[in-house]
């Protein structure tokens, strides 16, 4: 049979046309559209019943109420509790993404032994028992050589804190070091006898003078900004922000007073000088005359020169602060010397606001319901009073973030043969490397009680209740200290699980019949007296509620010394290099505090540049032009302690002559660059810049 070319062409053409009439090509098109909707390896969200659960955030002392949206049992998003009296529905950026911390790659699931050699570190996993053996052996050694065993607690006031204190009290040469809001610690130590836990009552102050404290940037409770703005717009509160660069808080404040970095002490003493001179203070102190003679050198003209402000500014600020009552002065703890902190706290003493509404709040201890500890005086220390290189075993509880442990200071106090045991969910790169890391749960995985935020009038207590199971292998700090105690032969440690002990605490609070309880499920505030049973208290606390103490009425105070920390103060030493370039840290406080953060924080960091990230050096354009640096170029920062590479950025809100450096990545390189003062606070450091 002869098949012609034409016939073949006809057949092919006809088939093609016929195919169009079948569903095949259309279905193929449709299917391909569906196939291209998403690659198979792109994760899809899991389905499940949606529910909202309530708990409290444990990332920092602000203890914000949290509403957790769950799919099945899995938390998928976090928001605030609008009716919460302390947090008022606000969260901070870290809190919004806190539910991701469980999946952080730096998470530890087994105890680790870390050995550092020649700049690199190697870690080996070990069992919990092995770790306990090692640590108790070191403790025995410490006993033999009369060296200190210290527990460092960055979040004091918890049930776990009490157990740490019990432990320290029974261990030879034991010390309990709590690390809270440093400026308040300084104020407390100016009194001859301890006056109790302190806080700043910012809600009721009419004037707040803040020395570099990021009040409107998630310091204290994130709701502070809204509360301040509400009062500001009604003329009921004034904020004077004193700092070298125009931070977010400076932008929102009533007045921004730019001073040269590192001159806070001078400014505060200048204010004190004016207050004393114009007889605006009724403060009575044993060493008033001594103080007066110290302060006499800090006349407005001298201070104006040192700080780079006008004399009028100093005088006006002093007058506003002392004449509008109530007023309060606050200062940042991490980047200021003890002298600066003392100088600012002295202002509070001079206007006599300690124990008064709108000033420094004197709070009551929140009872723990646990056995009293004898001789607490002997074990309670702060880092400064411990001799250098004396700690043989240092147990640091970093299971909760939100505290500012100064690594340099800790390093200084550690003995040559000292070991550090870190209770932490993560193992992070720090210069101050722990030899042992004991894994603890992260937020949402474990129960913990939380004590008061720094910026509220009264004590409070909240409970962060777990919503998800913690991975096997992690232990909560209470369990660790109980096991260590028994391994080390320490007898009187409370037994019981975290939940049992915290529940006991709730019961004790109920028994005290004072204060109010907020129940987040109902949105109601009720007096503790009006609760029906302990269960009411417990149920309120474990569902995002809180207990707030009634305000303390302080009748009398022990005497205080004004010049306690000022013996070495010298006006000449208080100026940072006037004609040199000075390195100043931007420490993004709560947002990047001592812990890991969710990778989603890249949205406010590298993906938008909203917050500093990476190694960036911010310079005023005029300064940059003088040096010859253009935006985006890579530079080397050289101090007499070391050097670091960074990317240069222009920022017109920075004082000329300053280089502001973010500390979000490679903090160890950055901190190593800076000069430290006596108490290991980072000082403004002279720096040279070169192009790479």
């Amino acid at each position, binding site marked *: 049979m002869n098949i012609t070319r034409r016939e073949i062409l006809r057949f092919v053409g006809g088939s093609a046309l016929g195919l169009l009439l079948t569903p095949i090509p259309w279905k193929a098109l449709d299917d391909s559209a569906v196939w291209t909707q998403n690659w198979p390896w792109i994760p899809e969200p*899991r389905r499940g019943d949606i529910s909202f659960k309530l708990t409290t955030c444990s990332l920092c002392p602000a203890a914000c109420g949290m509403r957790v949206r769950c799919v099945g049992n899995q938390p998928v998003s976090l*928001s605030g509790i609008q009716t919460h009296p302390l947090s008022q529905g606000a969260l901070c950026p870290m809190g919004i993404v806190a539910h991701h911390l469980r999946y952080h790659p730096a998470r530890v699931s087994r105890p680790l032994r870390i050995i550092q050699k020649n700049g690199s570190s190697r870690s080996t996993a070990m069992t919990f028992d092995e770790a306990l053996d090692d640590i108790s052996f070191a403790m025995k050694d410490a006993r033999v050589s009369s060296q200190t065993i210290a527990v460092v607690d960055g979040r004091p006031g918890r049930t776990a804190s009490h157990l740490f204190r019990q432990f320290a009290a029974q261990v030879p040469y034991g010390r309990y070091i709590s690390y809270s809001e440093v400026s308040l610690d300084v104020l407390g130590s100016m009194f001859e006898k301890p006056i109790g836990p302190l806080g700043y009552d910012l809600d009721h102050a009419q004037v707040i003078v803040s020395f570099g404290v990021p009040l409107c940037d998630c310091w204290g409770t994130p709701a502070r*900004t809204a509360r301040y703005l509400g009062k500001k717009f009604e003329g009921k509160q004034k904020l004077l922000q004193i700092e070298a660069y125009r931070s*977010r808080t400076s932008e929102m404040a009533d007045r921004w007073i730019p001073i040269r970095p590192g001159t806070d002490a001078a400014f505060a003493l200048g204010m004190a000088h004016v207050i004393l001179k114009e007889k605006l203070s009724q403060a009575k102190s044993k060493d008033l005359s001594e103080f007066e003679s110290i302060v006499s050198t800090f006349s407005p003209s001298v201070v104006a020169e040192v700080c780079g402000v006008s004399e009028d500014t100093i005088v006006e600020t002093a007058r506003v602060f002392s004449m509008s009552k109530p007023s309060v002065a606050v200062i940042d703890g991490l980047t200021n010397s003890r002298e600066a902190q003392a100088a600012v706290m002295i202002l509070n003493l001079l206007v006599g606001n300690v124990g008064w509404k709108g000033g420094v709040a004197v709070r009551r201890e929140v009872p723990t319901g646990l056995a009293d500890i004898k001789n607490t005086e002997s074990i309670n220390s702060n880092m400064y009073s411990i001799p250098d290189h004396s700690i043989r075993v240092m147990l640091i509880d970093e299971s909760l973030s939100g505290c500012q442990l100064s690594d340099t200071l800790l390093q200084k106090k550690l003995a040559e043969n000292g070991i550090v045991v870190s209770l932490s969910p993560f193992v992070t790169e720090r210069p101050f490397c722990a030899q042992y890391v004991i894994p603890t749960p992260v937020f949402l995985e474990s129960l913990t009680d939380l004590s008061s935020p720094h910026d509220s009038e009264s004590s409070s207590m909240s409970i962060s209740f777990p919503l998800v199971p913690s991975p096997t292998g992690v232990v909560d700090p209470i369990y660790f200290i109980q096991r260590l105690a028994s391994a080390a032969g320490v007898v009187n440690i409370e037994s019981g699980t975290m939940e049992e002990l915290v529940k006991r605490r709730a019961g004790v609070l109920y028994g005290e019949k004072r204060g109010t309880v907020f129940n987040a499920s109902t949105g109601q505030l009720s007096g503790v007296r009006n609760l029906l049973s302990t269960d009411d208290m417990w149920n309120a606390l474990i569902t995002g509620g809180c207990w707030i103490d009634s305000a303390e009425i302080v009748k009398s105070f022990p005497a205080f010394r004004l010049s306690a920390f000022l013996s070495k103060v010298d006006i000449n030493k208080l100026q940072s290099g006037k004609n040199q370039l000075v390195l100043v840290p931007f420490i993004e406080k709560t947002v990047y505090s001592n812990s890991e953060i969710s990778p*989603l924080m890249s949205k406010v960091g590298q993906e938008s540049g909203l917050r500093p990230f990476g190694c960036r050096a911010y310079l005023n354009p005029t300064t940059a032009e003088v040096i010859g640096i253009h935006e985006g170029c890579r530079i080397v920062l050289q101090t007499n302690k070391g050097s670091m590479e960074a990317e240069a950025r222009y920022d017109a809100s920075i004082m000329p002559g300053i280089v502001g450096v973010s500390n979000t990545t490679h903090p160890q390189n950055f901190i190593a660059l800076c000069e430290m003062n006596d108490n290991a606070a980072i000082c403004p450091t002279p720096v040279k810049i070169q192009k790479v």
Partner: protein
Amino acid sequence: MESNQNKPRYGMVIDLDRCNGCGNCTLACAVENNIPPAQPEENERTGITWMRVYKVDNDKPYPENRAVYLPLTCHQCDHHTPCESVCPQKAVEYDTETGIVAQIPVRCLGCRYCMTACPYHARYFNWWDPEWLKGMETTLNPDVSTRMRGVVEKCNFCHGRLQAARAKAAVEGRRAIADSEYIPACAESCPTKAIYFGNLADANSEVSQLAKDKYSFRLLEQLGTEPKVYFRSEQPWVHQKMDTKLSAAAKENAHG
């Protein structure tokens, strides 16, 4: 502004005097809408931030330099929506029921024409495939689909939340949703209450009244895109920088 008595026109007023640039809105938006964290090479120009906060300053030298923080999201342009008219395959849709400009990622070709058309830079492209840390993908929001690389995405006023509110109302036998039942993640998360959200077509709503306030303005008013996001500030330099005279004139014309 096309105001329809029956159909809502969702919009926002953002108070620049209240925004402290914390970044909560950016993060809450990323959590709600399943936006992946950055790749190592991703930066300010390739990152995906449906809600993004800019620092806007008055161009003055130190110490007169002042700044406000400006949260920027899709303005859901109401008139001749620039991105909608240019999409070659109708992957952008102005929803007449709500005024929200929706993006259909499964239809998007990734030609990025809409991105050049948008004067507010509200659109973002998936330059990479989304990747989450191991385990973190269990925290994805089931109300929002994940996208793949090669498609454009943008804010849709948390449309998933609107659907959820409608579903809830339907279950309870209601047709209309209450104002408080629908709020986008950014407005909800703002700790200073700088973001007001609501129905601009309802003359009694807070948003509507704030929009008419003499201190409110819109960006690029003169382009005639009729954006549904307003900004507000009592600081004169902000008005000068944003050239708000036309906004003021438009308000006068509209409301006498």
